[in-house]
């Protein structure tokens, strides 16, 4: 990981690209996170790629409910020669969940971004093939949002079996 000062230097470089790019930096448990405005996500990713973070280790989504903006997309980047990791985060709201797709920089972001779309509803602009990947294609709803119910079947005991749907005796 870059240490805390290294992280601030990176944030400074990103601000040089665009003054509003960096919304915040976090140095927690020796892991670095840079939060970037969604509009500048691609520029920030290209800058980090040029700095050596050429490997996309993971792309995943988070729902920060009830904090706004709710939906977060994290790109976990890795600099292999220096064994350095950094997390590039962008947060969007449910009303306007658009984030530029980074498939152009890392082709390996294809399936993970589709999964974030499937599970959280974040729309990746510029993604070559944005459709549901894990749920059936006609599924409605975004399951991993925090306000989506876990679902499941109620456990059948003798006291409630007649009241449950599907009881056929």
């Amino acid at each position: 990981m870059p240490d805390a000062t290294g992280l601030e230097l990176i944030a400074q470089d990103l601000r040089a690209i665009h003054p509003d790019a960096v919304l915040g930096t976090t140095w927690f448990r020796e892991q670095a996170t840079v939060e970037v405005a969604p509009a500048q996500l691609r520029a920030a990713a290209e800058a980090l790629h040029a700095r050596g973070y050429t490997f996309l280790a993971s792309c995943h989504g988070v729902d920060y409910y009830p904090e706004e903006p709710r939906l977060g997309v994290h790109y976990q980047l890795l600099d292999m020669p220096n064994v350095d990791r950094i997390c590039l985060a962008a947060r969007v709201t449910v009303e306007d969940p658009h984030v530029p797709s980074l498939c152009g920089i890392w082709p390996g972001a294809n399936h993970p971004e589709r999964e974030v779309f499937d599970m959280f509803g974040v729309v990746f602009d510029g993604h070559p093939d944005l459709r549901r990947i894990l749920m059936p294609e006609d599924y409605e709803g975004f399951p991993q949002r925090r306000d989506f119910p876990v679902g499941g079947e109620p456990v059948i005991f003798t006291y409630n079996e007649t009241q449950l749907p599907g009881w056929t005796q």
Partner: protein
Amino acid sequence: MEVTRERVDDLRVRQLRAREMLRGDIPDKELEAYVEERVLTTTLDKAVAWARGNSLFPATFGLACCAIEMMSVVGARLDIARFGFEAFRASPRQADLLILSGRVSIKMAPVVRRIYDQMLEPRWAIAMGACCSSMGVFNNYAIVPADKFMPIDVHVPGCPPRPEALMHGILKLRDRIQGNAPEGWRERYDAIGTEEVVGAADGPGSPFAVNVFGSGETGSA
């Protein structure tokens, strides 16, 4: 003469029922009766049933972790070939036993049903593991218990069930096919009458079951 006519009628009824079942039209109670009818009674039928039970062709249907334990059953330690079931067929048309091993997601359920429909009569299904019998470890939006969309003959509990447990379940099914359906535990341990029944007076308001003996009485003495 009478016997022949009865058997023809019986056959016709069974054909219609089979067609209904293939269309998925049979409601649950008749489905159960239909499945139970498979316990055949004439000597020739018994012989056929004995042969069928000893030569099941399972379908290769591994879904998740239970599939690895199912592969262990085929392996050399718990050899399924000594019972005659080593011929796992890839095509459902050639298989008679569907061992549902693993969690059935909602995307996979129609596929499973289609595979089951493609199997020819007589066919059986074993739900291996907790995930396909009930919801298992994961009680959530993504899984469906197999009972909801296809008839299951034997449920094998476990997560994943040991190969010995799966073998026990398969042998129980074999006994059932051959007409020696094993007694339920209530018959075996002389425990008929210990069921808890939701009485007629109970409605959604009363949460507790009523012991069939009523209050004040006990099962013994």
